[in-house]
């Protein structure tokens, strides 16, 4: 299923290095088999779920709906990408989803640092959270580690063991873009001046 998705949309793909899948292929395959079908990418019934069992880089499709790592799936390795992700499985490895939303579902367990635009924790996380916008701890959420974010929302019943650090709101995107273009303009002008001299 995941290999098919990669073929369907190779340009934008979060990468999951599923090292442990090789060691424990049957739960992974079972879990993949239970994953909901992606309506945007038709999936042939013969798609071999064993693709995740191979010790290679595995991709998930980028789509409007979040990708999912279902309960029962264990991944040991780094997850990076540009897709929203819902995790109900067991992850040991850094998760970096720049500009995207990560949700740790009620049965999700993560032992690593997480970096994303928005982090929503309903399960258990042992690691540091760094969110560009918001960290939300649901009433079943449990975090052991520091939280660095711009906004934090904590429901009654949530557990947080660690340091909370709020980052200042940066300049508006338009102002940032203007500043960046000004910088790039200055940078392009500088070599020209050098060439003249």
């Amino acid at each position, binding site marked *: 299923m995941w290999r098919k998705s990669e073929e369907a949309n190779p340009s934008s793909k979060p990468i999951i290095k599923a090292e442990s899948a090789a060691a424990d292929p049957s739960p992974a395959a079972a879990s993949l088999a239970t994953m909901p079908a992606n309506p945007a990418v038709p999936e042939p019934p013969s798609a071999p779920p064993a693709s995740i069992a191979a010790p290679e880089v595995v991709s998930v499709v980028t789509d409007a709906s979040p990708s999912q790592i279902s309960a029962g799936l264990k991944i040991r390795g780094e997850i990076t990408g540009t897709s929203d992700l819902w995790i109900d499985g067991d992850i040991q490895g850094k998760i970096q989803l720049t500009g995207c939303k990560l949700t740790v579902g009620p049965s999700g367990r993560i032992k690593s640092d997480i970096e994303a635009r928005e982090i929503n924790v309903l399960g258990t996380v042992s690691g540091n959270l760094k969110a560009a916008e918001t960290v939300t*701890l649901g009433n079943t959420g449990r975090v052991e580690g520091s939280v660095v974010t711009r*906004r*934090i*929302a*904590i429901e*009654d019943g*949530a*557990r*947080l*063991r*660690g*340091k*909370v*650090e*709020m980052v200042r709101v940066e300049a508006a995107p338009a102002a940032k873009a203007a500043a960046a273009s000004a910088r790039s303009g200055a940078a392009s002008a500088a070599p020209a001046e050098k060439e003249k001299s």
Partner: protein
Amino acid sequence: MNWSAKLRPSGPAPSQAQSAKPRPTPTTAGGAAVAAAPGSPNVRATNGLKEFLWLLSDIEQPRILDLGNVSQATLNFFINKGFRISTEDILRSWKEFIASEEDSLRRMPPGQETGRISQASLAEKFLADAVSYPEENFNGVLVWDLLDYLDSELMPRLMDRLFDILRPGGVVLAMFHSRTPERYHRYRVLDTQSFEMVPTPTISVHARIFQNREILDLFGKFRSSKTFVARDQLREALFLK
């Protein structure tokens, strides 16, 4: 009690100075007003918190440790005031730790039990992990009323640990019930002079009512203390390292 550890500035007393300023509206992360109504029976005025804030007012970005239930209102309050805050729900963590230890003992095969583990050694083991902060790391600690609920073996060891992780001049805010509370509460700071006591499902029975002398003995290492007794007989106490 000698409370001259921190000399008051030449300006007005803290209560007068704060009364001159407009009282801040408590807000949540999204900026919405906190739901608790000012006249709510669960909202109570606090002199202890006001004094706690004043004692830390000279410090730039003070570090504090909140040992109670994590609360968004409390986090926002302190973060907006420039504090750096760490949280550790000590009572719940202790309960979970004990349950986990009992579970691991139960799972041991017959004949391999190492004998009954004392509460004292369990408390040591727990604190080594749960309060594993560097020494002199914090300027203040919020204990709330947790000492009324903690295990008798854990409590003195926790106090020793708190003393170690506090910087010189650091302050502890603790509260003690004068009669057995009807319910277990979480505490949410609303503003500098009030907090809300939110009734919460009990995770531990109320263990004791401290006499004043017992409180002073418990905080014997601290150099000074100050106690406020409210109409509801809840004693708010500050202890200065």
